[in-house]
């Protein structure tokens, strides 16, 4: 593996860099890290949207878009993510490596301009009103449109049920309409100032194998003051999951029904075991849920499970016909029971191979390499080496998987029931 280079520029300002020539692109990402506070979630998302759309020099979407297109489709994008106790606002450029052209420096200049000189009014105490309103309008419309995505809605409803005792984490990272309506251009500017003056900053870089640009650019970070709180990523389980089984249903005139079921791991289970358990249950097309519910019973086109290794729960989601709900619920319960009794070595070997190969495929992704660098900076104990990951997965035993399955307890179910009858 290529050697990772670290710089600690000042308290709370770090750089983690993978000088790689694997990709025909350079990715440079500023990650601004703040405590996750439920009431500020939407403000940070709206700020991210504002930053990526225009800046002082390119003061409209059209002007900035033309500049990016001129730089061979350089991508400038911002996002927010909630990671345990942290809210991470990221602003990144991804620059194609054009033969015989130096686009990198111009693209990085654009990134610096966007961060240092956003689209403010001349008095520099709020964002341009028109730019603010445009983003607020877009985000409000997005929230409305997401309502038509029934799989997502069902998933969010389950999120709300599971996180109901955790007000800081219950809002999704893209925010909510209620908070959005209270924001204004001045408040957003305040958030921007907070970003530069109180957030921990981790800059992740993938690319620049000639190692020419990174050292030069690191000289130009004096706009980030070094008086940050050094926030740490909590490794412990933060969510107080429901102790008694809860179930909610909504009925709407839809063709398809969304069924979402959550199981809590009642004992502490390692990440490796959690991943293997999930893969066997519903992680791919060889998993029990896919084979039994879809292939054998023909009851679903899509059925899968996902594991949250930090909060220690597994969610199963399926798109089915309303009349089959009880049958699918029973089949799901049966597959959990099967995992407590009948895991064979062949299935286990497949699950491990599938997880390992996904990890190795992930190593082929520019974005995932960048995310791994960020995780390494947040938690230096993490070992990024693929080989170490492989060893952890290979060490999982049948007995461990059966025990982890036996410790699963169903804690919540949400049904978005489609009431339209089909022939």
């Amino acid at each position, binding site marked *: 593996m290529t050697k990772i280079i670290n710089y600690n520029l000042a308290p709370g300002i770090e750089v983690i860099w993978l000088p790689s020539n694997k990709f025909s692109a350079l990715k440079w990402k500023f990650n601004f890290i703040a405590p996750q506070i439920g009431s500020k979630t939407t403000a940070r998302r709206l700020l991210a949207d504002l930053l990526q759309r225009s800046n002082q020099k390119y003061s409209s*979407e*059209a002007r900035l878009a*033309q500049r990016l297109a001129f730089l*061979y489709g350089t991508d400038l994008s911002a996002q927010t993510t909630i990671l345990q106790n942290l809210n991470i606002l990221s602003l990144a450029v991804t620059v194609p490596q*054009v033969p015989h052209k130096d686009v990198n420096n111009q693209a990085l200049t654009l990134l610096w301009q966007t961060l240092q000189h956003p689209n403010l009014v001349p008095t520099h105490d709020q964002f341009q009103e028109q730019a603010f309103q445009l983003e607020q*309008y877009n985000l409000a419309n997005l929230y409305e449109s997401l309502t038509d995505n029934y799989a997502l809605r069902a998933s969010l409803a389950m999120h709300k049920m599971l996180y109901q005792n955790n007000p800081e984490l219950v809002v999704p990272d893209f925010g909510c309409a209620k908070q959005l309506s209270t924001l204004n251009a001045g408040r957003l500017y305040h958030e921007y100032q907070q970003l530069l003056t109180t957030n921990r900053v981790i800059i992740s870089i993938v690319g620049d194998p000639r190692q020419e640009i990174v050292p030069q650019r690191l000289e130009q970070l004096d706009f980030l003051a070094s008086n940050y709180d050094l926030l740490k990523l909590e490794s412990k389980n933060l969510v107080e999951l429901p102790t008694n089984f809860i179930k909610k249903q909504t009925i709407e005139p839809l063709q*398809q029904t969304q069924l979402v079921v959550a199981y809590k791991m009642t004992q502490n289970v390692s990440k490796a075991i959690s991943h293997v358990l999930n893969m066997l249950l519903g992680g791919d097309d060889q998993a029990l849920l896919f084979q039994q519910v879809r*292939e054998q019973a023909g009851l679903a086109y899509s059925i899968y499970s996902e594991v949250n290794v930090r909060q220690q729960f597994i969610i199963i989601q399926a798109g089915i016909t309303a009349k089959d709900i009880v049958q699918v619920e029973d089949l799901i319960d049966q597959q959990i029971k099967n995992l407590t009794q009948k895991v064979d070595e062949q299935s286990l070997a497949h699950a491990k191979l599938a997880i390992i190969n996904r990890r190795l*495929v992930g190593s082929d992704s520019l974005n995932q390499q960048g995310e791994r660098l960020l995780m390494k900076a947040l938690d230096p104990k993490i070992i990024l080496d693929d080989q170490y990951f492989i060893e952890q997965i290979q060490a999982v035993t049948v007995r461990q998987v059966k025990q982890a399955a036996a410790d699963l307890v169903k804690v919540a179910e949400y049904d978005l029931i489609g009431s339209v009858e089909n022939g």
Partner: protein
Amino acid sequence: MDELQAIRVDNDLNLPLYVLERPQFNQTYAVAMVDFGSIDSASGQIPAGSAHFLEHKLFAKQGFDSSQKYAQYGASSNAFTSYTKTAYLFKTVGQVENNLGVLLDLISEPYFTADNVQKEREIIGQEIQMYADMPEWVIEQVTLNNLYPQDALGNDIAGDLTSISQIDAKVLLDIYQTYYVPDRFRIYLAGSASTTAIQQYLTSITKQYPHLQEFAQRVPTNAIQQYPVLNPVKSMQRITFKAQRPHLMFGLRIDPQQRNLQQMIILQNQLELLFELILGDTATFHEQMVGQNLIDDSFSYSVIVERHYSLVLISMQTDQPEKLAQALHDYLFSDRILQELLPEKFVAVQRDSLGSYLFAQNYMENLALESAELNFYGLTYQQMFEVLSNINLQDLLELATNIFQEANLTTTYLEPKK
């Protein structure tokens, strides 16, 4: 750009098989793409959705499913059907040759029974239901139907619950035997695959999969439909559907001229540059509509070119569909679009397109799929840089003055039924 050169692998089976060696990546992505899609199966006596049904059911083999074999060798598999193509895919880390064997076995030996077809019908029924709740899918189907009345392109790729009830094992076997012949396939691998190792593997593959010999000898018997049926476009339709906001879609049909298949790809790239200039983020019209809150981030367009079909779909959600439809119509059918075709803007969008090809090199899936598709049009991935670079502003001016014809436009309004 040499690393993007696809190497043709000589083999006794005469399979059109190519490798793009990218040894710095862990994965290998492979696709077997056949020149047979939903519009081919929806014509004549074959029920709509048959190509898609065949795609699902071809994984079934006697006593096993191809996905299980892939899994044994650590690969994940998938498949999809488009209007004119069906593709079978796998992604693997290592075991490339064994997985290629599974892929060739998958496409060369069908196993359809009344029972396994019935089971698949239920699964596809669930898939159709899933799409049937999506307003963006519904408005697109209506638009395509109105753009190509009585043409198979107006049918959903998966068919509907009625059409799939007419598909049985015999239908699947008939279309398989008619259309799945080696000459209609393109097989591409991109990633850590070794041409030498694959070549060597193919020399002995028939020992493991003897039916490949028979498959290799099959020749096409039926021609496929190259050109669309050009009945008059239905200019407008209003529908109501469960949705939060009003949706609006414009469909513009571009009638085939005297173009060969290679020229269709050039046309596709010209259209993409033209529409980016006149409707993309940098366009004055786009900026004006955003300023009036008539459009938002849901505004998008897509250029579709398949064989000699070419069309553009413009979709959006808006609170003022009538006003926006009028504004968009007036704009597209006026000289204002020509005012957007400025040299500096053209250079920017052309560079943007070149950059997208550079980015795509990081994705083995993209390299394999794009290369396979382009091969049907007589082009390679490498040649796309030249194709894009050779497009000039004059080409776009000529295109813009020709393609906007009232008779080829359809507008669909989807009003929310909450």
